[in-house]
């Protein structure tokens, strides 16, 4: 068998195994995963606004109220905080979506069925 034929056969076998894995009769009871894209969007926007508001107000307390420096009250820190919050919320939403496999089909990966032995620590009896 040529390498190409071997590779095609492996792919077919992998597809058959993936199809087998989709069989819900084989699968254990699974809790539905609680969050989706809409939750992620809401959370990342709230997180970006919350963190930036906390940092901006915190800087006003520490720099202006405690130390009397007025530069923190100027327009530059406020504009910087707003821009940073906008960029952060956009980037973190994309970041979270990629991590949670919501973007893409995962076609760069294949699931190879292999038999493995996973090392697990033994429970040690506690000393009294």
């Amino acid at each position, binding site marked *: 068998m040529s390498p190409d034929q071997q590779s095609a056969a492996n792919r077919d076998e992998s597809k058959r195994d*993936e199809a087998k*894995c*989709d069989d*819900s009769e*084989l*699968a*254990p*009871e*699974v*809790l539905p*995963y*609680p*969050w989706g894209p809409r939750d*992620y969007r809401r*959370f*990342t926007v709230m*997180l970006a606004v919350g*963190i930036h508001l*906390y*940092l901006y107000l*915190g*800087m006003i307390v*520490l*720099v202006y109220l*405690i*130390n009397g*420096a007025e*530069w*923190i009250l100027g327009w530059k820190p406020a504009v910087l905080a707003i821009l940073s919050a906008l960029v*952060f919320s956009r*980037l*973190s939403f994309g*970041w*979270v979506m990629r*991590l*949670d*496999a919501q973007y893409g089909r*995962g076609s760069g*990966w294949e*699931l190879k*069925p292999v038999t493995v032995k*996973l090392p*697990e620590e033994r*429970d040690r009896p506690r000393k009294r």
Partner: protein
Amino acid sequence: MFDLLREALLPYYLYVKAIHLFFVAMWMWSTAAAYAYYLVPVFKAWRRNPRDPGVLAMRNWAIERFDQGATYEHIAFPAILLTGPLLYFLAGWSTESGWLALKLLIVLGVFLPIEILDYHLSHLGGSKRNVRRRNDPVAYERAIHHHWLFLILSSPVVMVFILAVIALAVIKPF
């Protein structure tokens, strides 16, 4: 009393700083490779194949290993919280320095709550090994969901603000 303590410890300022930096590096990067190249691929496979028994077994093993792998990070963090204020005290820093004020706000208001949650999820009540011992598969699955949510939602915050803290400490821009 405080002045006496400061005078006694001031010659050791650079030693304290070296220890602080050692623990900061350990805290920042000790879980990075395990997270990016082991945990995330396994969890992505699970999110695409949530009922595959082989993927579930691998996911469970990986997250329990990762719980234990966070030990270095969680030894380093209290050491940072001890040595950081000591440096502040010894050098006579104050929040007049804008960079330091912002850094303190990030460490205490952003990193500290994240780390408290992480201690709970990795070593205390949320530890998957501890939950598994209770023989409650639903609680175990829920604990994994919570930990995954925590990891994906906190990772952009941690990465962005770690870089910000380093930049603030080194460049001292304002």
